[in-house]
């Protein structure tokens, strides 16, 4: 559906996007990840024909963005970072304006306006001025204008920014429900969002592509491991962290121990263990047998966070974690 080859955007002083290539199949939801200034927005703008690429090609639905921009524009719904709203317009009026810009007319236009206001839950603000809407509503009106002409490709630049948690969930559900008919690219800095709704991830950093794969593959590739969070307390109100750490390290299947928190009475560890290993039982037993109390044990969510940090090379910049001990089971 979308093919990008060696796409490059150079400005006078810097290169925003540097020879990026990827391919997206029809019906996929693709997460576009990267730290600030990585070139996410620039890439999206080139795909929507807003900016011309310096070099390389991009085709959307079989049409080149430089050769046949009109055909590309007809097939794309785009939600920029800031929703493109005219503050003095009423919501309903704005949607019909955008609809007719996209080539809808008459009964079809009216029907689509009704449909998207229903779908994006903005029917109750149809007679309000856009300038007076709250951030959440503005974002949803932005999403509504992107899908009004039922485009084959949806390009969403940070669609959930500025929404409250309930609205974020609703928006994610909405995006998920749009998949299948639509091919969706969304940029975000919220990694859990990508895990929840995307099938494929494209990670870019400093204008360069660092990884493109499915979410599952990426997680498996980076670590055949899972993390467990432990809170251990001393029975007599005192605890020797080093001893506890040494004891945990002896448990088979433990790769790495990170001391998260150290208090006089208890300590918290994050323990990285091998996958498919019944290490949690062993861990619990080791702690209790060692004469300590196990206050808490839970699996910490395996996230893209670390993968992301590893790949984008920002890990060094993060504060150093202390107390790393290599597990004996390794």
């Amino acid at each position, binding site marked *: 559906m979308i093919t990008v080859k060696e796409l490059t955007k150079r400005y006078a002083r810097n290169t925003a996007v540097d020879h990026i290539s990827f391919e997206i199949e029809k019906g996929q939801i693709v997460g576009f990840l990267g730290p600030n200034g990585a070139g996410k927005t620039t890439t999206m703008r080139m795909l929507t024909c*807003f900016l011309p690429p310096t070099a390389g090609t991009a085709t959307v639905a079989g049409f080149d963005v430089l050769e046949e921009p009109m055909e590309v524009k007809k097939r794309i719904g785009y939600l*920029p970072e800031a929703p493109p709203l005219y503050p003095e317009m009423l919501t309903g009026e704005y949607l019909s304006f955008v609809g007719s810009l996209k080539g809808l007319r008459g009964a079809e236009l009216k029907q689509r306006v009704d449909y998207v206001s229903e779908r994006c839950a903005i029917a109750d603000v149809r007679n309000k001025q856009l300038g007076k809407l709250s951030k959440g509503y503005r974002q949803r009106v932005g999403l509504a204008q992107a899908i009004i002409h039922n485009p084959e490709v949806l390009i969403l630049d940070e669609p959930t920014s500025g929404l409250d948690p309930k609205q974020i969930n609703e928006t994610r559900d909405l995006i998920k429900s749009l998949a299948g008919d639509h091919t969706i690219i969304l940029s975000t800095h919220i990694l859990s969002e990508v895990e929840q709704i995307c099938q494929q991830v494209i990670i870019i950093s400093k204008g360069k592509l660092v990884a493109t794969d499915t979410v599952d593959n990426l997680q498996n590739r980076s670590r055949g491991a899972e993390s467990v969070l432990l809170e251990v307390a001393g029975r007599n109100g005192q605890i020797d962290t080093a001893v506890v750490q040494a004891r945990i390290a002896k448990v088979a299947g433990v790769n790495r121990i990170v001391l998260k928190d150290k208090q006089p009475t208890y300590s918290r560890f994050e323990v990285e263990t091998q996958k498919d290993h019944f290490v949690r039982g062993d861990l619990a037993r080791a702690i209790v047998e060692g004469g300590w109390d196990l206050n808490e044990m839970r699996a910490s969510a395996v996230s893209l966070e670390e993968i992301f940090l590893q790949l984008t090379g920002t890990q060094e910049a993060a504060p150093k974690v202390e107390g790393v001990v290599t597990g004996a089971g390794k």
Partner: protein
Amino acid sequence: MRNVWLIWRKEMRSYFVSPVAYVLIVVCALFFGFFFWSLLQAYLQFSMEAQMRGEAFPMNMPEEIARRLFGNVPVTGLFIVPLITMRLFAEEKRNGTIELLTTSPIRDGEVILGKWLASLTMYCCLLFLTVINIGFLFIYSHPDWKPLLVAYLGLFLQAAGLLAIGTFMSSLTKNQIIAGALTFCVCLLIFVCGWVGEYNSETWARVSAYISVSTHMESFMKGDAGLEGRHLLRHVDFRRTFSHGALDGIAAVEVVSEYRVVEGAANKIRGVRHALYRCGAGGRDGCQCSRQPLRQVLRRHSQQTLQPL
């Protein structure tokens, strides 16, 4: 064409939903009203003095009132044009809505044309206010309407050119104030750059005199629409150059084809021009020293202007 109409409608709406249009209308109504009133006062004064001295004093009402009123309109326009055009693109850029327009299946030319036409429509609304003033002349007397119409044509074309400059300037920046200031500077420059032609006949001076708006307005104000369509063509040039220049550059072929159309129009206008030449002035007033009501004075002069010299 449908897209041009869409953009035009959106722009007109934003003029009239915001206070912009109403403020401009009030300001223009005040100014034009004041110009008309003071010109009329001066005219009455002159005609009375002429009668008291018993001189044959050439008085021409369209010349004295309408032409001077129209002479003031471009000066007002100089301030009004930047106010009308500065928001056209600058606001879209500031709001981020330019991303919506440029990623929709609509040509750049259609956006520019729609916006420019909307600004022209807005200007015509303001120009219409002078019609009210001129209307009073028609109520109380019988001025010749043809030179007035030509003057309106001149004002319209001049505004079209200046608004095109304003539209272009607005597309350069996302700051409305910068767009407005640039427009004002360029328009002012175009007004005054003809002065060099008065004392200098080198090529560059002649060119700059040709570019100047005021040299071309003079003949329109006299009721003389376009010597061989020259002025008209220049106005058309202007619009093309600037509206296209905003994104595409000039389409030379189109200018040539437009030239032919303009030539045809100019030939038609020439007929009107000959008719207008005859509207000279003739003052053959008798010696009457009594105060006369406005209606009488105006009627007499307007009748005189219709007599051929």
